[in-house]
């Protein structure tokens, strides 16, 4: 259920994102989805890739600060209110979303939303109870 995501620390100055992506590319790692959280001084790049371990190794070896975090990927019904329904479930369960980002899968042509929770197990339980399908990790890596 849980999908492994790579997070990279970056200073907020020109060329930093390009440098990170170059290392990932050089290792032959393909990016499935990404999001960038930024402040005036620094940013955190979050990456979904096809080969997490190879991506982490490439970034660490090139001197970047990296961590691997576990997130959940949820398929969102392609209709108005689709995402709102999911957030209602989370809210009723008292679960706080640390951050989230969305992407569209070319293979399934479905919208997917990545969630980071403080308590992922409780989130899995709440979502499954509400009949919302979570995307398997392998599916995300091989999108």
């Amino acid at each position, binding site marked *: 259920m849980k999908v492994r995501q790579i997070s990279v620390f970056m200073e907020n100055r020109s060329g930093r994102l390009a440098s990170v992506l170059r290392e990932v590319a050089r290792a032959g790692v393909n990016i499935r989805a990404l999001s960038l*959280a930024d402040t005036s001084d620094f940013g955190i790049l979050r990456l979904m890739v096809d080969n997490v371990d190879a991506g982490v190794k490439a970034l660490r070896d090139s001197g970047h600060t990296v*961590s691997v975090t576990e997130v959940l990927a949820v398929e969102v019904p392609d209709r108005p209110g689709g995402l709102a329904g999911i957030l209602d479930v989370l809210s009723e369960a008292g679960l706080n979303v640390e951050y989230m980002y969305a992407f569209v899968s070319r293979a399934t042509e479905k919208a997917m939303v990545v969630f980071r929770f403080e308590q992922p197990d409780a989130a899995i339980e709440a979502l499954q109870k509400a009949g919302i399908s979570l995307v398997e990790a392998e599916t995300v890596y091989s999108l």
Partner: protein
Amino acid sequence: MFNPKEEARPVGELRRLQGERLKSLVQRAYGHVPFYRAKLDEAGVTPEDIRGIEDIVRLPFTVKTEFRDQYPFGMFAAPMKDIVRIHASSGTTGKPTVVGYTREDIDNWAECAARSLGCGGATAEDTVQVAYGYGLFTGGLGMHYGAERMGAAALPMSAGNTEKQIMLMKDFGVTILCCTPSYALQIAEVAAQMGEDLMKLPLKAGHFGAEPWTEAMRRHIEEVLPLKALDIYGLSEVAGPGVANECLEQHGLHVFEDHFYPEIIHPETGEPMPDGEKGELVFTCLTKQGVPLIRYRTRDITMLLDEGPCPCGRTSRKIARLMGRTDDMLIIRGVNVFPSQVEDVLVRIEGVHPQYLIVVDRQGNLDTMEIRVEVTEELFSDEVRGLEALRDKIHHQIKAMLNVSAKITLVEPNTIERTLGKAKRVQDLRKLT
């Protein structure tokens, strides 16, 4: 001159007085402070060996770390019943150096601070605005007692609240200003923003110290404030402000050497340097009762001026404006900061040894300190608020430990320049020397 009898004492007589005082100082220190007894014994010197001021070179030096190792009261020669005041200065590892004053010490210090004000022409008619910090730091209380001793009116403003400083300076007809040179410029700048013309005020002298400054800053201050900008020197281990002050000649600081005996030594060999040559300034506190100080190495670099008698009539020797430090101490907005203190704070935060760089600059008239910290995986959080919490925590602890506000910038690993594997810790962009 506040005290012409002392300040214009013939040099031969001054040397004899210094010799007498040195003898009694060494006896006091040897008799009451185990630290000095052990040092003198080790150096093979007895109090009887000291017969005149020229024998001072036989005595061992005292350094800041020794002072600090005696924390809190190991350097005290007087019993607590005779101590009436305690001040402390920032230390390199969080433990300050502690100085106790007897009533006589406070009297002597007030006398020297009054002489300092007299160097700028102060009389009992004056109103002295003391905008140095009051507290453990000696600046505020030192000048306050000096103003009162002079018979002038002391205005105990402490530092900060600049608009009120300007209002009272104007409404009270302040004639003498005591603060850091950068704060003097800050006052002028804020006054300009408020539309106040300070050049019309009856100010006549400013006693500026507690941080390094330059001739260029003096000219700048004198362009924006209608006063003679004078350099004042002091340090808490020796007394506080009023160890030395420039007279209106504005050429070197008169050392009140009947109380504070100055020497210049080679920082590496410890050998005395001839007058007119640069070296480390060393002080012996000839009259101190609370904490007698023998040949204390200040780590400040300056020289004893090699010139004839000063036209002002004072017979004491003069030191040049400070030219730097023998250690890595930074003075930021009047506060002493050692890079090792910053390191201590960082290590304590997550138990890691991150690479860091302290960048000091002067924006407008105020010193700024930025600390760049490389984010290691131990420190990294993949959430923005986690990193912001880390940054705020460092900021808060630096402020608590050092009493200086620093901008904390989180940077990527390996972005701080390393020379031969050793990281450079400080970048000072202020160009003060």
